[in-house]
């Protein structure tokens, strides 16, 4: 099958889905009202709530949700053949992610722009709020661990990448200084910075930076040394003011995403390559089953719970009109699906254009599950290098370019998810502190943790670091599956909130319930299979660390099912909720007290920061 046919065909299906299915959701399920006054107007404060042009909100929302995850997941998922991976990406994006992202924005819009975590408490019940925090805690822990491993792996396998990545940091700071001190627009300085980063690619090839000598001298593996460096960086970056590093670095990194998408798409069209992978693959006997693991492996790019944090964290507070929710929510989901599509094409067509793989059979690259899940980022990098060579970029430079893209995404994901985790830790500490009597040592300690940003950040870094330290060869693949389950659980929780909100208005929730039930079944099924595998592995770490972790996530999933079922039953039995009813998710949602100052702010910030962390 020609890759270009798959690319154009999928984009055409996405266009039809936007034209017809999103219109159905807008009219029948979410009942958008062009005259509804959005929170951006009613609560306008110039900081969080600000009416903004819909094209700007779409661009901001898309770059907030796009990241390394929709690349890595499909890069593993093509193990079962490109057909199932593409089918899940297309159906998941149209019926899952589209409804999920769009709905998260609408429900938040109708609830004073509240975050999805607060809404879970308001719409489903108080326990759902704790549940949400716990799921997010596990999600960001696994994200941090996975991406630290990914970055370290790329630094070891492609040491030419290290110099351009390092150069990005001072360049970003310089861009920030130019923009703020000279009060100039950021476009030209950030383009110059990007050109300088790319100019460092040949320099990086001349000066590959390796920690192998240090590893040899200390007896510590090179991967582990890079992981230490990466987490140290993440700690510092997340403690610096956002204007100093994070925002200006975003200028450079997001332009890299645009460049990568452009290179892949033009490379596909120019190269006219065919997909080398089989449509459906007869996998080796000891491979994990496609059901349910494909739907966990490809989380972002099909359905991602992370998007609900961005949708309700910032996007809903900026929409000028309620009808803009369709344009922003649904189109950004399609954009994420397109990123996943590019990853599928890179790993099934582009990877064979890469000269080192030419003449070999695609099946040898994905010979078994271990091979597929050990280095998915490497497959994508080689695929991008193949497509880039189609348009005349020398392959050795294109390889570093591809690695640079992944590292840029992953670094952004890492340090912003550290910030998100810090908020979650502070919020859990605040809520837990209230359960102890005033003046008790436990309450004082938890209150101290809730207030101390440095301590909370340190914990946020140390927990995933400990996870990466666990010996064994489970690294990316195994942690990725656990990450997938928690991500799908977050999506399930957000879909539950949306389904209850729709049901309370006695509209037909079936198009929300279908992806919800599907995700819950696949997640629980995958967790049970993994639990059995971990317990039976005979490996101490899998038995005593990953199996309990899996069991905890399984309990959270079952807890979520119970809460959602109870809330849906009540919503269906009771008469339609009048607009403004408490917990109804209408404009006058219930107020929160006590810890809510931190709770709401934290959730809001979480949504903002999480944006970069997909």
């Amino acid at each position, binding site marked *: 099958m020609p890759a270009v046919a798959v690319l154009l065909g999928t984009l055409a299906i996405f266009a039809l889905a936007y034209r017809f299915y999103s219109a159905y959701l807008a009219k029948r399920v979410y009942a958008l009202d062009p005259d509804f006054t959005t929170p951006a107007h009613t609560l306008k404060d110039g*900081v969080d709530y600000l009416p903004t042009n819909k094209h700007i909100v779409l661009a*901001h929302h898309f770059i907030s949700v796009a990241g390394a995850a929709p690349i890595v997941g499909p890069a593993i998922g093509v193990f079962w053949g490109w057909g199932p991976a593409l089918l899940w990406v297309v159906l998941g994006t149209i019926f899952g992610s589209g409804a999920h992202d769009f709905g998260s924005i609408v429900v938040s819009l109708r609830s004073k722009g509240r975050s999805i975590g607060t809404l879970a408490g308001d719409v489903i019940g108080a326990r759902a709020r704790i549940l949400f925090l716990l799921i997010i805690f596990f999600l960001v822990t696994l994200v941090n661990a996975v991406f630290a491993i990914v970055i370290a792996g790329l630094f070891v396998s492609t040491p030419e990448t290290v110099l351009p990545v390092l150069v990005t940091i001072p360049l970003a700071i310089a861009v920030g200084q130019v923009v703020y001190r000279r009060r100039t627009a950021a476009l030209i300085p950030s383009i110059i910075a990007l050109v300088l980063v790319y100019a460092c690619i040949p320099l990086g090839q001349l000066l590959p930076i390796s920690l192998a000598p240090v590893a040899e001298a200390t007896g510590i593996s090179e991967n582990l040394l890079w992981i230490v460096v990466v987490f140290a960086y993440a700690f510092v970056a997340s403690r610096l003011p956002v*204007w100093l590093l994070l*925002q200006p670095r975003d200028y450079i990194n997001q332009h890299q995403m645009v460049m990568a998408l452009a290179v892949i798409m033009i490379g596909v069209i120019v190269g006219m390559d065919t997909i080398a992978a089989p449509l459906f693959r007869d996998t080796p006997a000891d491979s994990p089953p496609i059901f349910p693991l494909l739907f966990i492996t490809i989380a972002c790019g099909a359905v991602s719970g992370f998007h609900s944090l961005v949708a309700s964290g910032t996007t809903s507070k900026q929409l000028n009109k309620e009808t803009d929710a369709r344009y922003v929510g649904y189109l950004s989901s399609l954009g994420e699906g397109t990123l996943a599509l590019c990853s599928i094409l890179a790993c099934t067509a582009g990877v064979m254009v890469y000269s080192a793989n030419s003449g070999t059979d695609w099946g040898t690259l994905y010979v078994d599950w271990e091979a597929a899940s050990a280095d998915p980022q490497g497959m994508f990098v080689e695929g991008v290098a193949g497509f880039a060579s189609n348009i005349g970029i020398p392959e050795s430079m294109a390889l570093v370019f591809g690695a640079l893209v992944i590292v840029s995404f992953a670094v952004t994901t890492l340090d912003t998810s550290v910030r998100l985790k810090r908020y979650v830790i502070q919020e859990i500490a605040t809520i837990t502190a209230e359960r102890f009597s005033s003046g008790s040592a436990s309450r004082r300690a938890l209150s101290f943790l809730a207030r101390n940003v440095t301590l909370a950040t340190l914990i946020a870094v140390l927990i995933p670091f400990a996870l990466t330290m666990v010996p064994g060869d489970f690294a990316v693949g195994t942690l990725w599956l656990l990450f997938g389950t928690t991500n799908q659980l977050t999506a399930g929780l957000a879909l539950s909130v949306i389904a209850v909100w729709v049901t309370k208005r006695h509209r037909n929730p079936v198009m929300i319930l279908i992806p919800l039930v599907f995700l819950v079944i696949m997640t629980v099924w995958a967790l049970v299979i993994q639990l059995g595998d971990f317990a039976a592995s005979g490996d101490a770490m899998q038995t005593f660390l990953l199996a309990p972790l899996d069991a905890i996530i399984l309990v959270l999933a079952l807890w979520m099912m119970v809460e959602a079922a109870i809330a849906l039953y009540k919503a269906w039995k009771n008469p339609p909720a009048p607009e403004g009813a408490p917990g109804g998710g209408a404009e006058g949602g219930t107020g929160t007290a006590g810890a809510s100052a931190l709770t709401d702010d934290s959730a809001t910030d979480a949504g903002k920061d999480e*944006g970069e962390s997909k």
Partner: protein
Amino acid sequence: MSDEPRTGAGSTPLGRAWRRAVTAWRRFEGFHQEVFEARWGHARQREARTQQDTLRALLMLESLGVDNPVAYETLDLIPYMVADLHEWHQRMGRREFGAPGGCC
């Protein structure tokens, strides 16, 4: 722009094309700026607000009777502090802010 005489390079087809290109570039630049402002502006303003709140708390210690060793130097800052006192005390959860000095 429309009042400018259409003479010189601007009135030629090339000049007009150049002007259109510059205008399009400026629009794109503005769009780019606003996208990143929408993404990061709130976080930056939140940080700025936290810093200002800290400064305000330090200055107000004096009004609570705690000695400020640099009171003479910080006296000049008081008028700036008063300017947005109302917005601040409402954000802090106090509907009204009486003595010392009074507000509303």
